[in-house]
């Protein structure tokens, strides 16, 4: 009986390792340009995502740090300019939300703020953060993630 349990446990562990390996092979986490993030993307994710009860709380995997919002260091005065550490942390957190399994447009960062994305950032009318891929702010995120201007149709998913 003991041997049987041990065999099942070993098989389970091996299966789990195999599954993890398969997932690692399938998923990718891009590393888009950091300077573009600092210049163009950071102000958008700070404004549209980093509110203090949304992605500006320490409990969220995706969080954005900055003035007037969550500070990386509790000792930093709330409205002091953004620090280099905060920019880097915000970049890494934003980048992690671009993890995808073949199409970066299916990543959480690019999917959740759109209609039907299952996001809580909706108003009383149920509208999402961005109405479509045509939204100027969304296009900045998309172009940064793709590392080139996106030329697709707004209805193209």
């Amino acid at each position: 009986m003991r041997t049987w349990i041990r065999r099942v446990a070993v098989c389970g562990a091996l299966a789990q390792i195999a599954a993890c390996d398969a997932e690692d092979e399938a998923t990718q986490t891009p590393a888009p340009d950091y300077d573009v993030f600092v210049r163009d993307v950071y102000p958008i994710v700070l404004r549209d995502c980093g509110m203090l009860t949304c992605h500006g709380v320490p409990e969220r995997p995706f969080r954005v740090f900055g003035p007037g919002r969550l500070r990386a260091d509790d000792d930093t005065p709330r409205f002091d300019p953004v620090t280099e550490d905060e920019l880097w942390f915000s970049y890494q957190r934003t980048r992690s939300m671009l993890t995808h399994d073949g199409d970066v447009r299916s990543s959480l960062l690019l999917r959740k703020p759109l209609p039907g994305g299952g996001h809580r950032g909706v108003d009383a009318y149920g509208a999402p953060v961005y109405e479509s891929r045509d939204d100027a702010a969304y296009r900045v995120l998309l172009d940064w993630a793709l590392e080139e201007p996106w030329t697709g149709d707004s209805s193209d998913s």
Partner: protein
Amino acid sequence: MDWRQLGFVVGLGLLAGLGFSTPAAYPQPVTEGGGGGRFFTGSHGDAFGCVSCHPAEGTVGLVLDGLPEAYQPGSTYTVTVTWPDEPRPVSVVAEWVDDDGFGVGRTRLAPESILEDEDRCASGSVAPALYDAEDERTVIGMPACGATQLRLQWTAPEADVGTVAFHLGAVGSDDSEDPSGDAVEQRSVNVAGPDAAAEGCSTGGRSTHLSLLLLLLGLRLRRNVTRGSSSCRRAPRGHVPSTRGR
């Protein structure tokens, strides 16, 4: 500049220094701690409300007055928003938008000649200001300054643009200089277009006059009038916009 004006400027400066305790920070760049153009009115033009940053701990106790059920094109309405003066100083942002989230009509501050003590800050100054936002929106903002009333005037568009909405967000600060512990209230009121007003219960208008004429004709012909002549009937349902189609 007299002492009163100087006090007003200094007061606004101090409030701006507190960042989000004043709507004046919202147009400022987000990298400087501003709202980056978001005003958190809760409208579908802004997409966010006060609770995006302030975990609501109690409500402010707003009372709205002067909002019509349906607007008449080109008419001006004076809207009054009041709140209790205790226990917290209250800041307010508000705007009018159409079904697509675009600004609609013309929003103005109430003329100083009609202001009352309740409209004024503790210092006696008049604090509300207008801010331009994207999508042709105009936001009115009142910092937490001790006033207990905000009045604004809204002129409806010259044409029927369908249902519009008045959105308002208010935060009652606990003076902790952080978003926790504040009272929050968000209100959205739909105002129907003039077509709805014509179809609602009214004592005037073409349909009423036509009904009366038919009734008189009917009496003259000594025929029994079995149906009522009033145009009064329930307004049709379905004035709440379902989605925005921007």
